[in-house]
């Protein structure tokens, strides 16, 4: 039964490289600890060549001008680990999360789907690189041999069944001491693991004193004599060196969490550098989603803001609606501000009408949204999360009428919303009321409309409207209604003068009404009015208007014109 292993060497550095790919060519050291006792935790190969080693103090490392120092970021490491698992899960449903830097895949039955084992290994290597992870891939007949090969050999390694001992023989004996390899192999408590690690170190020290430097030498030792001297643990190490262990994988149940974050050394105050970082995060998230054949329908951006001294930072924010009181059209992007301790967070949620996967589109939408709703304070941390969704499965038809492309339309609508306001673009929805202006705006979602009635789309004979249907006389509204001065003679309308609109004034030639209506008397916004349909003799000619007398407010208004 074949197994594959992806191992990421110097994982903390790889996590930083994934977030900042431009650092790959430089000498980089990762430090951790509380200032001023920070120490170098991990270095890449270039840094090692110039003499930087782990456990150096940060002050010592800073003396090297060629070195780039970065703090250890648990968020970046967690993102890289999630990406590693996504990569593995895109090839096999049975994946063991062996360590933060190691994932083991069960490839049984996968050859019929993804090709031969070398093809799978190379594709796995390529997929990991696409996700920003430089890892080693090894395929062997048992998981431990695959792990040792991935740790020992760079690139892609294929070990044929029966040749494990021969292939692994050249590896130094230190590969057995890898903590990650041992961490999840046996589920024990932390103290037991520490004891085990100490025991393993002692065993390897003993082997070193015996002159056993590589796995070939360990494999060649007599088993009974080794057992007498090193016990069962010694035998286990020998089995590992011979590549003859056998165990079942502990499959991980990967949660569909797609989150990426960047912690910034210097606060960002401009949108352009923020967009640059957002682009990177979006590309990472989209690559992860793509590897799992998923799209997203909701993006949550959380910006941690620098707490400005002197005063409440909430005062610096622009006016934005909260999630609870947002209008339906504004639910496309919702905002939340909250202060936790000394940190202020600014959240934006971008809801999409359909599952999409286009980092450029997402970036543009976030840019437009942040342009309209700037955070109002310097940003020190960016956190982006995507809610996964299955890709939409819509089949187009040759004879269907044209439909706006969802990706292009979403961007167009966001641009229009930035121009005219979010509440001024969308579809109409009539409310169950007789009140004037009894409607509200909601999101325009052609995709949902198409999916809702696919049967109607293909219904034959639905190409032309019924011919017997006569046109409906439309009303053109004046928003807001125009206040008018009305002259009455014997209780009859005689003349209407509208100061704001010169066209809507003149003598009343004809009138019909009043039509009285009222409603919502049980609420604060009660209304009661009389409506008249009038024909005015204007300068241009005769025009028909709707005149309204507000019975509660006491005023005359020209509400619209019949056109």
């Amino acid at each position, binding site marked *: 039964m074949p197994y594959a292993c992806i191992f990421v060497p110097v994982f903390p550095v790889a996590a930083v490289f994934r977030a900042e790919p431009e650092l790959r060519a430089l000498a980089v050291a990762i430090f951790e600890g509380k200032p001023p006792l920070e120490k170098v935790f991990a270095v890449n190969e270039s840094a090692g060549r110039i003499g930087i080693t782990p456990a150096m103090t940060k002050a010592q490392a800073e003396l090297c001008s060629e070195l780039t120092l970065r703090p250890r970021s648990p968020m970046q490491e967690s993102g890289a680990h999630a990406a590693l698992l996504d990569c593995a899960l895109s090839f096999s449903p049975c994946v063991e999360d062996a360590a933060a830097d190691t994932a083991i895949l069960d490839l049984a039955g996968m050859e019929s789907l993804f090709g031969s084992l070398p093809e799978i290994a190379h594709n796995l290597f390529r997929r990991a690189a696409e996700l920003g992870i430089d890892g080693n891939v090894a395929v062997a007949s048992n998981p431990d041999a695959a792990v040792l090969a991935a740790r020992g050999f760079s690139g892609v390694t294929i070990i044929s069944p029966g040749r494990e001992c021969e292939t692994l023989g050249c590896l130094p004996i230190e590969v057995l001491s890898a903590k990650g390899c041992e961490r999840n192999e046996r589920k024990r408590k932390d103290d037991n693991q520490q004891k085990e690690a100490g025991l393993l170190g002692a065993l390897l020290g003993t082997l070193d004193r015996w002159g056993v430097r590589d796995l070939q030498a360990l494999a060649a030792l007599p088993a009974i004599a080794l057992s007498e001297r090193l016990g069962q643990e010694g035998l286990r190490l020998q089995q590992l060196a011979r590549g003859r262990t056998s165990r079942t994988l502990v499959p991980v149940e990967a949660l569909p969490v797609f989150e990426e974050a960047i912690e910034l050394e210097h606060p960002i105050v401009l949108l352009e550098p923020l967009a640059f970082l957002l682009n990177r995060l979006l590309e990472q998230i989209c690559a992860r989603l793509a590897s799992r054949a998923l799209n997203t329908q909701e993006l949550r951006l959380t910006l941690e803001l620098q707490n400005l001294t002197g005063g409440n930072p909430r005062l610096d924010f622009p006016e934005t609606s909260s999630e609870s009181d947002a209008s339906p059209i504004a639910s496309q992007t919702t905002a939340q501000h909250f202060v936790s301790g000394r940190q202020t967070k600014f959240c934006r949620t971008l809801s999409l009408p359909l599952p999409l996967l286009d980092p450029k589109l997402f970036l543009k939408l976030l840019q437009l949204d942040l342009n309209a709703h700037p955070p109002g304070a310097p940003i020190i941390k960016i956190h982006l999360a995507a809610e996964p969704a299955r890709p939409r499965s819509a089949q187009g038809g040759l004879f269907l009428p044209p439909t706006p492309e969802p990706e292009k339309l979403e961007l167009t609508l966001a641009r*229009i919303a930035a121009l*005219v306001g979010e509440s001024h673009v969308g579809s109409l929805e009539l409310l169950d009321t007789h009140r004037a202006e009894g409607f509200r705006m909601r999101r325009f979602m052609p995709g949902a409309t198409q999916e809702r009635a696919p049967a109607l789309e293909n219904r034959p004979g639905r190409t032309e*409207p019924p011919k017997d249907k*006569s046109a*409906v006389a*439309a009303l053109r*509204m004046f928003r807001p209604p125009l206040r008018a001065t009305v002259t009455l003679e014997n209780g009859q309308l005689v003349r209407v003068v509208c100061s704001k609109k010169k066209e809507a004034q003149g003598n009343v030639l004809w009138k019909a009404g009043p039509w009285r209506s009222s409603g919502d008397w049980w609420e604060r916004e009660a209304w009661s009015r009389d409506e008249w*349909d009038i024909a005015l003799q204007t300068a*241009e000619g005769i025009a028909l208007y709707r005149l309204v007398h507000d019975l509660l407010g006491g005023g005359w208004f020209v509400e619209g014109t019949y056109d």
Partner: protein
Amino acid sequence: MSSAVFSTSAAQGRPFVFDSENEAEVCPEPLGVELFTEARPPQRAGNTGLPRPFQDSRLAGVTAASRLAVRPAPEMVSSGIAAMDMLTGGLPRGCLTEICGPASSGRSTLMLSALAAATWRREFCAVIDASDALDPQSVASAGIELDRLLWVRCGENSHHAEHCLEQVLRVTDLLLESGGFGLIVLDLGDLPPQTARRIPLTTWFRFRRAVEHTPTVLLAVERQSIAGSCSSLLIKLGLIKLGSIKLNTSENPERPMNSQFPAPTHAQLLTGLEITAELVRSRMERKPVRSAEITFASKTVWAG
């Protein structure tokens, strides 16, 4: 050789038609000569000045160069009003259509009918409303599928007409660029003509180019025609007359408007309007020799 012959023919003003009669005139010698042979110099036939290769009868099947660039007629779609379709042939796809007229002339009625017809065809439509004048009740009553209509309400945040106009033009550009709409309505009906005329002609040319070769009908509703020659169809709606207002009185359902003894105002009900439309310009195949005029009726929502 060929180009020389064509240019000679063009200079002499003759059509590039090679029918049998012309051949008899220009080519007295028997045909069957090899076409475009380089080895043999062209022999002149009589005093016609035409070289021999072009006297071949096989050229009779060649389409004349002047006919090659004939633009295919655009697809016409229904405007939702049968009388209007008879007058104009419908609204052309990929073209700009203008509907102009004063207040109460029926522009919005025609616009909503076109929108209703488009949503009936399962197309998506957009209304770019320069003065936020669309009435949702009228939209619903006209039979427009609300889910298929994108309403862009311009002018709300802008205090100046110029800013509003700028918004309208930018939104139109964006929607045309986005594509996929069957009908895009540019409603400038409440803008004063002097403001609407500030739209440069180049903008209309740009709109025309953007909508060309697309299945979109671009419809501009305005008081006066402002797009000039950029519009393929220009429909002008006339002023209503007092007699064209249809009433339904409680005493006499078809009582005339200008009756000597009108009914009380509360006993009168506006039931509809008679709209007069004139086809001023059309670039379609069915171009009229002179402007044609029709009258059609609209009815109010409550008229049933």
